[in-house]
């Protein structure tokens, strides 16, 4: 029974997308409820999938009964099920959050189209998480990206240009991915990830395989917005509709990171990377530069959403840096944990930041003065997430840094410990400005409390509490789960 769930998750979203489009002709109010119902259903299924996979191992589903490597296979292992859960968990919260902001920001007649694209985006992301086929991953990624470009553009004005630039760079990135697949297909003649991995193990010296790896890496790194390729990202995050910012900065960003981990470890393996250790160390230092530069750019911003966008660029660096440790399990464990950790923190921060815009139209940091008293619960959620970003134990931000520090201690690369400490200090600098504006500046005296509506406030509060609870979980019991992910990706040490 549960073996069929991965394909049901993807299909449910696709089906509901077109149901919303059709039902929107008759009733525009119902779109939101169909969307929320579908996401809740998918989230329930993904919890069953995650539970099943941790107990009994990978779910392999052959579409149409065609055996791989000829047919398309959905292979959902621990990492895939975990990513699927992350995607749907944040889609769920973002959908709850979306109701009010969408009513405010999107014209009424466009609302069914909005939720149609919303479901297509979720469908694409789920597809990437469950698939075990290289070309299928490309198709799902394009479904998600195209829906994403259109959603960003729905805000109009500046968002149109932001979306256009994202479209150009995103398509260049995904085309590089396709080029990598072409090269891999030329030497192995297969598109199935497991089959490709087995066939590649004899071809590690092949020049075409090297070229394929470089194309995959560059393509996915453009999609992730690692530092030299980040130009599209701040505009896209800043100008898009609030609900879309929350979804793309959490689930969408993680899907690209997941695809990179999947290609690097499940198709090319650590054995391949160890042959090019010098190049891979260079990647680690580029990621470190991304961490530091992203934070410095964040300090220079005056708009709150843009500052958070640059902070996301810095956290993409964390994931790539964590991936670059090959001889220790702590590296990949940090990367896997950070998929959830960063989403938790960024979802809270963006929900509150967009909430400030919703309530008071305050976009710049200095306009936030006194909001700590006017909107105490939202400001509290923001502060908890900000503390987590800085990395104070036992929050989730600390867990990632702790694992990366463990990894660098184990491999003797002490430089990265310094990177972690500097990054924490820089985060303190840019979040301090916001916290200062919220609580310490502004006129004193009586302020009328006027917090966000419940549908926007509670998702942010729940995620803020989870920033702490998940941190405790990772430090206590979650290690076992992360170790099993490291084991499936064959990173040992």
């Amino acid at each position: 029974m549960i073996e069929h769930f991965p394909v049901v998750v993807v299909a449910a979203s696709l089906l509901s997308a077109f149901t919303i489009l059709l039902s929107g002709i008759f009733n525009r109010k119902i779109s939101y409820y169909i969307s929320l119902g579908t996401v809740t259903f998918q989230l329930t299924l993904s919890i069953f999938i995650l539970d099943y996979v941790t107990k009994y191992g990978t779910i392999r589903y052959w579409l149409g009964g065609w055996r791989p490597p000829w047919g398309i296979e959905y292979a959902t292992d621990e990492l895939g099920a975990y990513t699927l859960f992350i995607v749907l968990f944040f889609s769920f919260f973002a959908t709850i959050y979306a109701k009010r902001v969408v009513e405010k920001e999107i014209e009424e007649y466009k609302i069914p189209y909005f939720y149609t694209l919303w479901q297509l985006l979720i469908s694409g992301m789920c597809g990437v998480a469950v698939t075990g086929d290289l070309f299928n991953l490309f198709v799902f990624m394009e479904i998600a990206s195209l829906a994403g470009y259109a959603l960003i553009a729905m805000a109009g004005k500046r968002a149109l240009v932001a979306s256009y630039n994202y479209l150009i760079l995103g398509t260049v990135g995904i085309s590089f991915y396709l080029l990598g697949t072409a090269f891999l297909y030329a030497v192995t003649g297969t598109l199935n990830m497991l089959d490709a991995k087995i066939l590649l193990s004899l071809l590690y010296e092949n020049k075409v395989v090297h070229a394929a790896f470089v194309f995959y890496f560059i393509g996915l790194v453009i999609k992730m917005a690692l530092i030299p390729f980040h130009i599209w990202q701040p505009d896209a995050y800043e100008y898009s509709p609030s609900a879309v910012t929350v979804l793309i900065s959490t689930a969408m960003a993680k899907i690209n990171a997941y695809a990179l981990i999947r290609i690097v470890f499940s198709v090319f393996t650590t054995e391949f990377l160890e042959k090019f250790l010098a190049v891979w160390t260079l990647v680690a230092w580029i990621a470190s530069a991304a961490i530091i530069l992203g934070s410095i750019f964040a300090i220079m911003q005056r708009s709150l959403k843009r500052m958070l966008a640059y902070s996301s660029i810095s956290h993409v660096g964390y994931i790539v840096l964590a991936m670059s440790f090959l001889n220790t399990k702590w590296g990949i464990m940090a990367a896997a944990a950070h998929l959830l950790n960063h989403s938790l923190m960024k979802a809270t921060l963006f929900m509150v930041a967009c909430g400030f815009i919703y309530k008071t139209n305050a976009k710049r940091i200095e306009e936030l003065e006194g909001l700590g008293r006017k909107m105490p619960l939202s400001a509290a959620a923001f502060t908890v997430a900000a503390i987590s970003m800085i990395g104070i134990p036992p929050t989730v931000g600390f867990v990632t840094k702790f694992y990366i520090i463990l990894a660098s201690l184990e491999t003797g690369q002490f430089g990265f410990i310094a990177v972690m400490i500097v990054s924490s200090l820089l985060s303190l600098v840019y979040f301090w400005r916001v916290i200062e504006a919220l609580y310490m500046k502004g006129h004193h005296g009586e302020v009328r409390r006027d917090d966000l509506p419940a549908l926007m406030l509670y998702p942010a509060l729940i995620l803020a509490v989870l920033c702490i609870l998940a941190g405790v979980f990772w430090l206590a019991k979650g290690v076992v789960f992360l170790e099993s992910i490291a084991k499936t990706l064959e990173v040992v040490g």
Partner: protein
Amino acid sequence: MDVAEMFLARYNYWSFVVLMLIGLYGAIAYGNLVKKIIGLSIFQTAIFLLFISLADVGKDIERTLGLKSGTAPIVWEKGIEEGYIYVNPVPHVLVLTGIVVAAATLALALALMIRIYREYGTLEEDELKELMG
């Protein structure tokens, strides 16, 4: 294999390289949004050309073993007896899917350009930057 053969017998691969570079240059270097999307389309099409070229698996065997290549991938007993090698159908399927994706991308980009033009009255990147401040 001499140099002439390397260039002439594999002309499709060379055109792939040239087209890909032209497309990538166009997508990145030009300031006009229409030119950018033209470049991007050339870039994507170049990748499809590579896939299609890969499909013709019999080309090298043809010369060494005296077999004929390039037939359709259908069961054809006479063809098997006479030593025909069929074309790999998988890349064609992939390219078909890829063309659909590329068309969707192009359509979305054109729709965005119409909206941008209505909003700002220009499609030049530097003018847009000025207007947006």
